[in-house]
């Protein structure tokens, strides 16, 4: 892995949009001028089953196609997965975990048994309910991820998400606005 490449692992449950989030994240980051990869892990396809998806982003072309073993960022869409899935697998001391939860960073750090400096929390489910009207935490978590990575262009991301969603939901402009608001809110609310 080149020094400049960022590797991300998403954990969710079937139906929460972990795959969609990784794809949307990749597309929007590519539109800001970076190389990307987004790929899901294929296993049992059932609602509620633990699922993973992955991203690589880099200034340079990405030639590797292996799985991600040492993620720089782990995004957890459903905090109940902390109890049942080894979400910190491969995470080294510099790795960061972003959790959709109403708990504090210290509470999450204790559950994950990692340093509090590695933990970020945001109540993405609440944000999704307020902005989109449904508990779909994947889009707000995208905003939180952009904030935690720190080097990405949030305005560019918002612009590209808008373009992308406008095509998909051209008959439902409310959905587009709700999703954009959720990204902004999570970007502002995510805390260490």
């Amino acid at each position, binding site marked *: 892995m080149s020094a400049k490449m960022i590797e991300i692992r998403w954990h969710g449950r079937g139906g929460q949009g972990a795959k969609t989030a990784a*794809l949307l994240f*990749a*597309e929007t980051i*590519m539109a800001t*001028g*970076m*190389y*990307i*990869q*987004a*790929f*899901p892990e*294929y296993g049992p396809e059932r609602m509620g089953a633990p699922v993973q998806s992955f991203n690589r982003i880099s200034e340079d*072309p*990405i*030639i*590797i*196609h*292996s*799985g991600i*073993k040492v993620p720089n960022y782990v995004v957890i869409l459903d905090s109940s997965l902390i109890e049942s899935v080894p979400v910190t697998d491969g995470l080294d001391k510099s790795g960061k975990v972003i959790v959709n939860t109403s708990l504090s960073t210290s509470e999450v750090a204790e559950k994950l048994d990692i340093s509090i400096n590695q933990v970020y929390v945001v109540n993405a489910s609440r944000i999704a309910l307020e902005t989109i009207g449904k508990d779909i935490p994947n889009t707000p978590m995208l905003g939180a991820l952009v904030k935690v990575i720190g080097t990405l262009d949030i305005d560019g991301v918002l612009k590209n998400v808008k373009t992308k969603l406008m095509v998909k939901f051209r008959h439902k402009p409310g959905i587009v606005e709700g999703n954009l608001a959720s990204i902004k809110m999570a970007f502002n609310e995510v805390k260490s």
Partner: protein
Amino acid sequence: MMKTAYSKGNLVAKTGNEVMAEALRQIEPDVVAAYPITPATEIVQIFSQFVADGTVKSEYVAVESEHSAISATIAASAAGARAMTSTSSQGLCLMWEMLYIASGLRLPIIMAEVNRAISAPININADHSDTMGARDTGWIQIYSENSQEAYDNIIQATRIAEKAKLPALVAMDGFITSHCMEVVETYPDADVKAFVGEYKPERYLLDVKRPYTLGSIDLQDYYFEHRYQLAQAVIDARDIILDVAEEFKRTFGREYSFYEKYMLDDAEVAIVIIGSAAGNVKAVVKELREKGIKAGVLKIRVYRPFPAKQIVKDLAHVKVIAVMDRSDSCSGAFPPVYSDVTASLYSARVLGPKVLSYIYGIGGREFCDEQVVKVYETLGEVAAGLEKYSREVEYINVRIK
């Protein structure tokens, strides 16, 4: 900064399946017949939407099995149409007898194939067992490392097949490539259409002015000659493949050949590999080179026809070679790529290189950088004079009792 190879190219984020469907839309064959199978389903699913939306004028035949899919494609091709299909794994297996008929009738059918393991046990992930099983069917086989190559290969394959009068399949690794979104450069519709051109079959069944018979009985008197001609046609396809690659480079700016050489010319140790894993191997070689280790890669793109003479020339100077197979022949001898590479070397009396056989990644088993490094370490030790190395097939990352 991201750049295009072609001045009118367009960078998009697409999965291998999506970009394959995009190529099919641009090529706009007369007939597509297919049956869904993971992980290739999306290709024809997306394409059938193009048909439903009227984006393409292609006739889409929804069939009840892969046997019917290839049969309908054969019939359409024999009738004079540009015909394509797509499948994977068990689907390719179900097409089996018809694969030979497609090549025996010299029909330039194009297939987008997504490499997947074969049952049993059931497995949906990548290995090359499906297409390697079809290696002697008389089909041209072109493999892709990533989505860009899959897109470029299917465009070239259309020209190659029609000029060679042979069916051709373009393969990419299941999920690893088919479901991985990455940056791909696509070309304008008009430019792709201009490159593939219009299909003008020399003879076809619906040509009522020049009627002819296709697929008649052919016993001891002529069958042998016809099969000999088929084998010669596969050999002759080599020049066509290089010509099309040359024109592709002139048009779209990307360079293709039978295989890609990566730091091979002065390499002392090298890996021969096919498909998506080549990227990781190249990344490892880059690091080894920085440490002064003369490592290289030969990534096979065109497996049928096998570029025997060229490969021998480019491997002759290498001290130790590992041939990595992503399928097993269960033969008691050696897996397919190893067999072809070593037979090519031996028949040319190039006996310098020591050649080791490895099998990896069966059923989607992870193949990671540490394993690549270990293979190069072994090659280095053998090159340095280690005599006690395996003369048998070595399996990577498998639990053996």
